[in-house]
């Protein structure tokens, strides 16, 4: 993966920059020793690494503003970082960049059950947002698999989803307001504890902008009352296509499950070995979860099971206890980890129309044979968000490149089927060079125009999202201006 060459002019100014930053930050918040900056050399996309020039860990909006003002004046690129769990390389530094980590900003600022909101600093982890309100039986809905570790800042940057967003939506649908610092240090407040911020929907375009428009330091999030109960049912099928058809029939029936998850044989086995969830031995597994009171759950599951029976399932099993439900979900949420125990893997994130599921799965199987690399499929079937996991051997020369080429083919297939390159992980560097397969140049121009407005010097996370050749003129203009 190509990254821009570090700017020697910027590197030469490192000492001066450190000096300036130390005037606004405590000593332990400016990390410039080479051994220590290596901590920030990558995120969860570990195939690519590059230590930043330095890293800063501000503790307040004011400090973030000072840092950005200084970096802006010095013409230094800044890469914002939440918890570093991006699977797309969203927090990958360049050697001439400053990592701005928000991890020290993790306070709850306000909980307001009457208005059903919570206001947090953006470094707070996703799960601990729910942790702060569950005493009152409330929760924060978006639930990425990395929710134990990932920060709200990163969730906003990538517009993260999760298994339960079929019903509750993704981050953008649960975000009401932000405090954000622009690259020049200006602090802006957008939205708040009310619905639909006024004016243009700036909140909408900030969410999912991959840290390229500003650094979000505080967020107002919608919290919801927990349902009375939830219960998953496991359905095994001996054919992927039949499982896909069953998903479509469930959705068409008028029932809206809170989650419909899909796993193929390779993933079923890996997860079963890992979590002991009691998954059946079959080609395709669906986990369908519904919510409500006991009686409501019974009636919804009865309808769902009736639909499933028409597709001749090899297994149909309702969870009998909370413990069993937890195990079923543990298996699913550890899918990436479980596959990681088998081999190195690359995780893709393309989304397709649900109707294209059988065709796309068949074609992925064919491509797997062509490339000679096994693929496990685990995904959010209700909304067509696939996660093919390509297994490869990082120690075998050429295997990574082969895997990347195979991955690119799968993503193009998703786009050609009417879908998109990424459903919830973001573009980062990983899918950057495929953007022209989904969008034309004019489409990307329109997106880059937004960055021109928020960050005219193109200093925030500049080498992400857009193919390097497409953003080159803008990045070069910045270098020339120095």
């Amino acid at each position, binding site marked *: 993966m190509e990254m821009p060459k570090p700017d020697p002019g910027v590197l030469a100014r490192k000492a001066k920059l450190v000096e300036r930053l130390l005037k606004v930050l405590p000593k332990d918040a400016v990390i410039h020793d080479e051994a220590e900056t290596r901590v920030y050399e990558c995120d969860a996309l570990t195939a690519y690494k590059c230590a930043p020039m330095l890293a800063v860990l501000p503790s307040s909006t004011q400090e973030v503003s000072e840092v950005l003002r200084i970096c802006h004046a010095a013409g230094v690129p800044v890469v914002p970082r939440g918890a570093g769990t991006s699977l797309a390389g969203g927090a990958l530094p360049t050697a001439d960049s400053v990592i701005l980590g928000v991890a020290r900003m993790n306070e709850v600022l306000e909980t307001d059950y009457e208005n059903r909101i919570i206001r947090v600093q953006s470094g707070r982890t996703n799960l601990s947002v729910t942790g702060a309100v569950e005493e009152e039986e409330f929760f924060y809905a978006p639930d990425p698999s990395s929710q134990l570790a990932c920060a709200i800042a990163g969730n906003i940057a990538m517009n993260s989803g999760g298994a339960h967003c079929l019903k509750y939506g993704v981050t953008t649908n649960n975000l009401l307001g932000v405090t954000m610092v622009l690259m020049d240090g200006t602090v802006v407040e957008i939205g708040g504890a009310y619905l639909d911020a006024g004016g243009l929907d700036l909140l909408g375009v900030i969410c999912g902008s991959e840290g390229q428009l500003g650094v979000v330091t505080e967020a107002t999030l919608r919290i919801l009352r927990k349902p009375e109960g939830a219960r998953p049912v496991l359905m095994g099928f001996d054919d992927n296509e039949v499982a896909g058809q069953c998903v479509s029939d469930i959705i068409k029936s008028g029932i809206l499950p809170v989650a419909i998850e899909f796993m193929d044989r390779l993933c079923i086995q890996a997860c079963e070995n890992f979590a002991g969830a009691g998954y059946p031995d079959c080609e395709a597994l669906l986990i369908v979860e519904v919510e409500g009171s006991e009686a409501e759950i019974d009636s919804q599951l009865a309808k769902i099971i009736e639909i499933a029976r028409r597709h001749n399932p090899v297994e149909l099993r309702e969870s009998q206890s909370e413990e069993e439900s937890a195990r079923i979900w543990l298996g699913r949420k550890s899918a990436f980890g479980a596959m990681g125990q088998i081999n190195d893997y690359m995780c893709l994130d393309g989304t397709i129309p649900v109707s294209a599921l059988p065709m796309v799965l068949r074609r992925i199987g064919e491509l797997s044979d062509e490339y000679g690399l096994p693929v496990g499929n685990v995904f959010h079937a209700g909304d067509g*968000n696939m996660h093919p996991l390509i297994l490869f051997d990082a120690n075998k020369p050429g295997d990574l490149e082969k895997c990347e080429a195979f991955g690119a083919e799968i993503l193009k297939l998703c786009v050609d089927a009417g879908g998109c390159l990424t459903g919830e992980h973001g573009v980062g560097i990983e899918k950057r060079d495929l953007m022209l397969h989904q969008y034309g140049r004019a489409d990307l121009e329109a997106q880059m125009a937004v960055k021109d407005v928020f960050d005219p010097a193109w200093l925030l996370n500049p080498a992400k999202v857009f193919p390097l050749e497409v953003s080159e003129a803008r990045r070069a203009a910045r270098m020339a201006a120095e």
Partner: protein
Amino acid sequence: MRPETEAELAETVAGLNGPVRIVGGSTRGVFGEGQELCTTGLRGIELYEPGALTLVAKAGTPVAEIEAALAAEGQRLAFEPMDHRGLLGTRGEPTIGGVVAANVSGPRRVQAGACRDFLLGVRYVDGTGQIVKNGGRVMKNVTGYDLVKLMAGSWGTLGLLSEVSLKVLPQSEAETTLAVRVPDVERAVQVSSVGLGSPFEVTGAAYDPAAGQALLRIEGFADWVDYRTGRLGALLAEHGDVERVGESGAVWRAIRDVEMFHGTTGDVWRISVTPKEAPGIAARAEAEKLLFDWGGGLIWALVPEGADLRARLGAFDGHATLVRASEETRASLGMFQPEPPALAALSNGLRQRFDPRGLFNPGLMG
């Protein structure tokens, strides 16, 4: 001007040499200078997959046509878009492009989300005549920046929509409304908060001061609507007398379309506010009539012609939109709440980039 294809639309825009006022069915009261550019020539549902909960339509397609197609499959636009005709005294056929451009949502917005939350993709023509697409037809999509949200509620000022792609949802089998007798708006907001903070998925929470009733709607399969209304009713009993309204479709249509203001004279404002602040804000509005929706988070206020409601309200968390007024009042007060300078700079910057010649509804949003 009424182009019939996207290509014609792009050509028309490229050839413009002065501002235009963009209209679909002309039902939502867009005002301003310039010739009318009408989108109703771009009509038709392009794709509808009930099993994928997705519908793609050209921007000029009548909302009624879309709702009929969805109803035939037992589905609907869950954000419950308001029909402005009664309130504004307009005629014509509301279009889906108009709904999206104005981010029009109804009572269910409080639970299901706004129009922008259901918008999956757009195609539009920018101010230079360039056709641009963003998003797509799948429910989860974080590929590049989300211009889809930006276009929703931009009232045409960033681009002229040619096609929209929407997530749709199943209709509910049954619906019941609980009417709780309350003495004032404080109590109404309290009752709404109890309902919206309950696990029973209240899909509407409104208060009509004239009727003295807080209304809470529950939808879903018949058996669970029964169960939930029972449980919620018990929960609310301590706040006031609770009555069950069986067929409440008309009640919610009336709230959605602000029927109690139809045929009145005076200006109509729409205030988005933190629900808890609603009583204080409502008092400051000194309105002739009020209607509360979204659990207090949305206030409709009828005030005498020309009254500067924003001056009456002063600074607050939220914003006030002037929905109905004379051209003079709208010109002097502005339809939208002025933004703080830093945000106004960003919004102006975006408008300049998307519509560099200032052709689309100039001055409407700032």
